[in-house]
């Protein structure tokens, strides 16, 4: 799975620095101490996710492995790694930048397109930045709808945003290219089909991943950093 060293050059690495707004610049200071991974809640749940390895791959120039990995999408930006890093490497920002790059390569669209329904129904129309309804059948069964929970707590089922606020959100979204980005996203994927029941499958609006997003051809990602459930999971399988 590893690449040859000659795939990379120092000259190219130097040119990478200014463009990526310093995140590569920081990454080369990495001591590989593993503090980031040690405290990471995402790594505790999915052992294949390892921030230290991802930084190492960037520094060694194994960009293909990072871009095409599922692990790049397992960070949820708690910034714990940044706070414990002895070299002050801003790993969450690095993940953010690399997710953009991965989407440009056609990876990660199955995660991003879940935003589509929310973007059309809530964000641009009502100006609500948090989903007002639960679409995930599993959460509906176990926790219940967000609207109901809000009503039980004595709140109106949906948040209200002023008309001017909605107009502003629409303008910002258009100016920043967010609207165009949302239009690229196709379909809604909710649950892993292997794990949902027939009843859940009926309500599920799963659609296949778009073969192309704009000019970019989409690809499925790979577990490039090991078995998702750890060694035990691999042996059980």
């Amino acid at each position, binding site marked *: 799975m590893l690449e040859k060293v000659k795939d990379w050059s120092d000259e190219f690495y130097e040119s990478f620095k200014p463009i990526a707004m310093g995140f590569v610049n920081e990454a080369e200071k990495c001591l590989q101490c593993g503090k980031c991974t040690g405290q990471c809640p995402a790594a505790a749940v999915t052992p294949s996710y390892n921030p230290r390895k991802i930084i190492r791959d960037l520094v060694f120039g194994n*960009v293909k492995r990072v871009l095409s990995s599922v692990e790049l999408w397992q960070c949820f930006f708690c910034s714990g790694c940044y706070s414990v890093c002895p070299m002050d490497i801003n790993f969450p920002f690095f993940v953010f930048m690399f997710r953009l790059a991965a989407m*440009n*390569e056609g990876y990660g669209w199955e995660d991003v397109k879940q935003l589509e329904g929310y973007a059309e129904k809530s964000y641009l129309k009502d100006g609500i930045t948090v989903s007002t309804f639960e679409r995930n059948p599993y959460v509906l069964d176990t926790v219940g709808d967000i609207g109901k929970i809000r009503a039980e707590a004595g709140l109106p089922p949906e948040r209200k945003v002023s008309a001017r606020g909605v107009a502003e959100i629409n303008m*910002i*979204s258009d100016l920043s290219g967010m609207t165009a980005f949302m239009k690229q996203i196709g379909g809604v994927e909710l649950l892993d089909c292997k794990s949902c029941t027939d009843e859940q499958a009926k309500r599920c609006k799963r659609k296949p991943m778009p073969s192309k997003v704009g000019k970019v051809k989409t690809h499925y990602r790979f577990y490039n950093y090991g078995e998702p459930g750890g060694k035990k999971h691999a042996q059980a399988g």
Partner: protein
Amino acid sequence: MAENFMEEYGQETSREAAERTLSYFRELFSLEMPLGRMMKMMPGMVKFAMHGKDTRVDLLKFVPQMMPMMKAAVSGKREG
């Protein structure tokens, strides 16, 4: 379907993938304002201006700040 990422990328090296990423970032974070990019922004501003009188007034306050950018977009020349 490819079994792993090396198969997916085929003969392509990491350097080629990274070069593509670089040019994508260059475009994404570019401060240049070509006419095409400017035109994409217009619908949002028009929508905002059409919403009401107060939004129109707010937007007009920003016109002096936007003028150099608009001039550059229309003439196709870079400022400074």
